[in-house]
């Protein structure tokens, strides 16, 4: 309950500050961004994040899942190692490389975000599936489940909370990274921040920064809800029982 209160207060503060800055109209010779500018930038920002994230979910889960299969066991340490090392590379470097290879603009931003967002999903999918108790899998096979049934009815449902947690992490990171993508001309809220910085008008910087923060908070809360909803009830009960001890 208290958690929600803080969340609402914080969001109110961020939106209020944005509104206040927008209401300034002009700072010196510079006009601040109009409300419509901010709405368009937010939609553009969300578009980059969502497109990159959807691609990352499909590719990340696929790679993470395949890495756990016997046939791919031999390359799984490499895949998971790469995913881990990749996450230590700063986001700015990713965006720079993407811009260098693909040119400035929207496409480069989406590609950079997609690659970076895939890493936590690969890692969590791999760890989630490997963490399924071997005894549970053996029992499933011993009772006559086909490989497909073991995956669909046992491995994936049990790994689901961990996989969704990976998606949540990568989405929140992506909102921030997308702001940096403003530097390579991808638009979005990052473009407003860059403009503000270029002309050294702090209200304009805040007009881009505050909605970015609000977006990250909202998406995190939403995906937290999804995570809870996707966690099988039997696993939640287990958590309570363990905490009870």
């Amino acid at each position, binding site marked *: 309950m208290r958690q929600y209160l803080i969340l609402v207060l914080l969001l109110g503060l961020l939106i209020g500050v944005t509104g206040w800055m927008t209401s300034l109209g002009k700072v010196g010779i510079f006009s601040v961004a109009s409300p419509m500018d901010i709405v368009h930038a937010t939609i553009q920002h969300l578009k980059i994040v969502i497109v990159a994230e959807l691609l990352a979910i499909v590719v990340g889960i696929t790679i993470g899942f395949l890495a756990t299969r016997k046939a791919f066991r031999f390359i799984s340490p490499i895949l998971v190692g790469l995913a881990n090392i990749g996450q230590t590379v700063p986001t700015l470097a990713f965006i720079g490389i993407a811009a260098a290879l693909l040119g400035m603009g929207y496409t480069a931003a989406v590609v950079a975000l997609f690659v970076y967002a895939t890493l936590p999903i690969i890692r969590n999918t791999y760890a989630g599936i490997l963490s399924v*108790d071997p005894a*549970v899998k053996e029992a*499933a096979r*011993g009772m006559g489940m086909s490989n497909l049934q073991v995956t669909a009815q046992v491995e994936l449902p049990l790994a689901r909370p961990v996989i969704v947690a990976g998606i949540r992490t990568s989405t929140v990171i992506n909102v921030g990274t997308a702001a940096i993508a403003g530097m390579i001309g991808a638009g979005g809220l990052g473009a407003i921040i860059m403009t503000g910085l270029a002309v050294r008008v702090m209200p304009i910087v805040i007009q881009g920064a505050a909605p970015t923060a609000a977006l990250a908070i909202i998406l995190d809360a939403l995906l937290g809800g999804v995570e809870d909803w996707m966690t*099988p009830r*039997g696993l939640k009960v287990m958590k309570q029982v363990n905490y009870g001890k």
Partner: protein
Amino acid sequence: MIKLEHVGKTFADGTEAVKDLTMEIEKGEFCVFLGPSGCGKTTSLKMINRLIPPTTGKIYINGVDTEKLNPNELRRGIGYAIQNIGLFPHRTVGENIATVPMLLGWPKEKRRRRAEELLDLVGLPPDTFIDRYPSELSGGQQQRVGVARCLGADPPVLLMDEPFGAIDPITRSKLQDEFLKIQSKLKKTIVFVTHDINEAIKLADRIALMREGRLVQYADPATLLNSPKDEFVRDFVGADRMLKGLRLIKVKDVMQKPPLTVKVGEDPMAVKARMESENLRWAMLIDEDGRFLGWITRDDLKAGKPIREIVTPPTVTADPDTPLNEALSMMLVSALGTLAVLDERQSLIGVLSFKNIRDVFGEQWDEQQVEVGKEVQ
């Protein structure tokens, strides 16, 4: 029912887990694979439902070559329970039990009815347990659900890999007793793996003792204990094998009639006179309904007090189905070294003394004479 013919398994790394195993398990028989770790017993079990495909040889179930069947369909027709239970944590107890029925496409109603039936059978009240999750259950309860689950679609054959191995000794013994009761009703063909000789003796109709991938002796528990085939079997069953053999005999098989029963209200002096004439050290006191009240010794009668006041109540009593090993240990704590045997209504039906147990050994000793003689040559 189950026939293994020259079955062998060599793993990819070159380990020969099972070598030329040939044996047959009858319908309705409780067969226990016994042996030290690494003897190939679990591998042998898993070859029956093809979780591990044999490298050589053939396995037939009801005359059908298991190799010719779809492995998933084969497994759905065989109950399977393992030491770590492996209940699905995201499914309720009821759904867990109905796993195979679900795979076989039973309608929902029928699955739930079956789960209720099986929970009843394993002693868990269905109303309390059917909608719970495995993590809310104790280890013993989880294992009961594991047993219920392997009976899910009423398969004729059960494969059980140390199903009671990870449970505390008291619960284990209780589960074993209950499982024997269930088996006496259901008459499944069971293949059961354990490394615990006592468990094997308690449960098995026949024990397959294995060593380094080979079948060493395949016999009923009494034969295994009384005539171990070689030094390995003798060592494995242990130096106390005669004592272990006592488990196989029940009190009702060797108990005798009480030498003298006295009803409450009889005249103490008359009782004393009878005990003296028959040279008895003690007599057993029962009430009007034949319920056992306790022991009376000749010394206690000397004072001439009423019988009610001098009776020594029993510290322990046995029932007719108590195995002799437990009875023997009860006798050691009983003051007189004799044990009253009571039926479920507490009526006295017999008495067990050390002499009765010595007689059992005597018989087995006679059977052994030949073998001992052989060794001397």
